[in-house]
């Protein structure tokens, strides 16, 4: 509870650090914030060419099938990959002043989330261009986004603090995220996986998050509410555990950095 109070007290710092992270990312680049569009679009182009034409995946309107999953994944991927360096990159201020350290992972996730919201414009434009439009199922979208935010924050808490002690994590996470990408139904769908492996696949929370996005935006139907319910509980347990790990680690940040 005291964390919430402290975060409220330091709200201006939270705001400026989100803004700084968001603006700072593209400050030196020629195209600026446009990169948050171009990046996922180029990635999309690669996958949309590779899978239907080279791997011969047979899905109707594959580009749309891909886009509704790939853009949420990009948000998750960039959050997690950046989370390993959030604390280390701020070692200067951590050693100099006191502030609630939790602000750093929170602003990492939030600035990426804002980026994600901007990229959602691409999804919506694409949905209208392809003639699919938006269904009533869109009302479930904020819930799924919120769950993904909570899940990313939990992971970010754990990775940002543990990396301070074990620096290898940064490289390990990069490889792991590549594996995680293929363990999540982004370029394929759960139904394409043999029955016996599905149980294992279901243990991955991202499977359910991505499937929910696809249900809502591509199939335009309500997502599996039971899965969403379980996900809700798991995400909050993870957030709780993640914050406690972070809290345990944060006391020695200034000495370890």
């Amino acid at each position, binding site marked *: 509870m005291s964390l919430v109070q402290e975060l409220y007290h330091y709200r201006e710092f939270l705001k*400026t650090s989100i803004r700084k992270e968001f603006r700072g990312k593209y400050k030196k680049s020629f195209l600026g914030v446009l990169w948050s569009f171009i990046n996922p679009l180029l990635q999309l182009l690669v996958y949309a060419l590779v899978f239907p034409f080279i791997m011969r995946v047979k899905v109707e309107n594959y580009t749309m099938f891909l886009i509704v999953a790939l853009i949420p994944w990009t948000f998750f991927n960039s959050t997690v990959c950046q989370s390993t360096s959030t604390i280390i990159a701020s070692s200067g201020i951590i050693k100099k002043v006191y502030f609630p350290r939790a602000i750093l992972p929170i602003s990492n996730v939030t600035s990426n989330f804002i980026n994600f919201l901007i990229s959602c414009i691409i999804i919506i434009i694409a949905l209208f261009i392809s003639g699919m439009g938006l269904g009533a199922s869109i009302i479930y979208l904020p819930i799924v986004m919120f769950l993904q935010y909570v899940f990313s924050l939990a992971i970010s808490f754990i990775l940002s603090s543990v990396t301070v002690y074990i620096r290898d994590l940064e490289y390990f996470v990069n490889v792991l995220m590549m594996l995680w990408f293929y363990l999540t139904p982004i370029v394929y769908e759960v139904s394409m996986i043999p029955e016996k492996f599905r149980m294992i696949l279901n243990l991955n929370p991202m499977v359910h998050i991505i499937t929910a996005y696809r249900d809502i935006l591509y199939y335009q139907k309500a997502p599996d509410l039971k899965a969403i319910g379980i996900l809700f509980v798991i995400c909050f347990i993870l957030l709780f555990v993640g914050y406690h790990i972070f809290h345990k680690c944060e006391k020695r940040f*200034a000495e370890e950095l």
Partner: protein
Amino acid sequence: MKKQSNNKLAIKVSHVTKNFNVYYDKANTLKERMIFFNRNQKEVRKVLNDINLEISKGETVALIGVNGSGKSTLLKLMTKIIYPNSGNIKIHGKLTSLLELGAGFHPDFSGRENIYFNASIFGLTKAQIDKRLDDIIAFSELGDYIDNPIRTYSSGMYMRLAFAVAINVDADILLIDEVLAVGDQHFQEKCLNKMKELKKEGKTMVFVSHSMDAVKFLCDRAIWLYEGQIREDGSTEKVVSDYLKVCS
């Protein structure tokens, strides 16, 4: 009743011990940890040993002692940048530390924007910063330079801006660590006078310095730290003269 007695105390340090691990050759990565498991030898150095200290509201206290006696460590413990191995520290009131100036300054942004970054780290809201902005700019004496990016500043200008923000944060308790070492004579005097003013307003201050003139000018009480323990605690006059006797 209990609350009453707390009201007079600003800082209470009880039985605080702090160890630093000094690694001979630190293994930071997993590979190093596995291959050179014997490399991670460390020496535990006791920096502070069972410190007990009470500072009342409105007091101005100097911490003096030779390098490595634990003064800065004690200040860092008070701001919660680091935590003690045992014992605890209670703070009553809003605390700001001027341990190092210019935390969170970003070289590509203007002086004005950096005032916002820096002050927000100290926990100020936008409205509070807006209200102090003119005071801060006036104190820094930067004039029109305030809208130039910080990377174009000289080190003196940088320092003045940083100090101007920190001193205007409006805390109840100020921890100041050797920040006056930079800046010209004029600005140093200005800072000292500003601190004297704050003292009159009833702020609590803990001041680390090697400048005995500044200590005598500002503080009523001095604490002499020696090898992690309090060697003497009393009026500035007496502690400083005892300290100087040993030093020379």
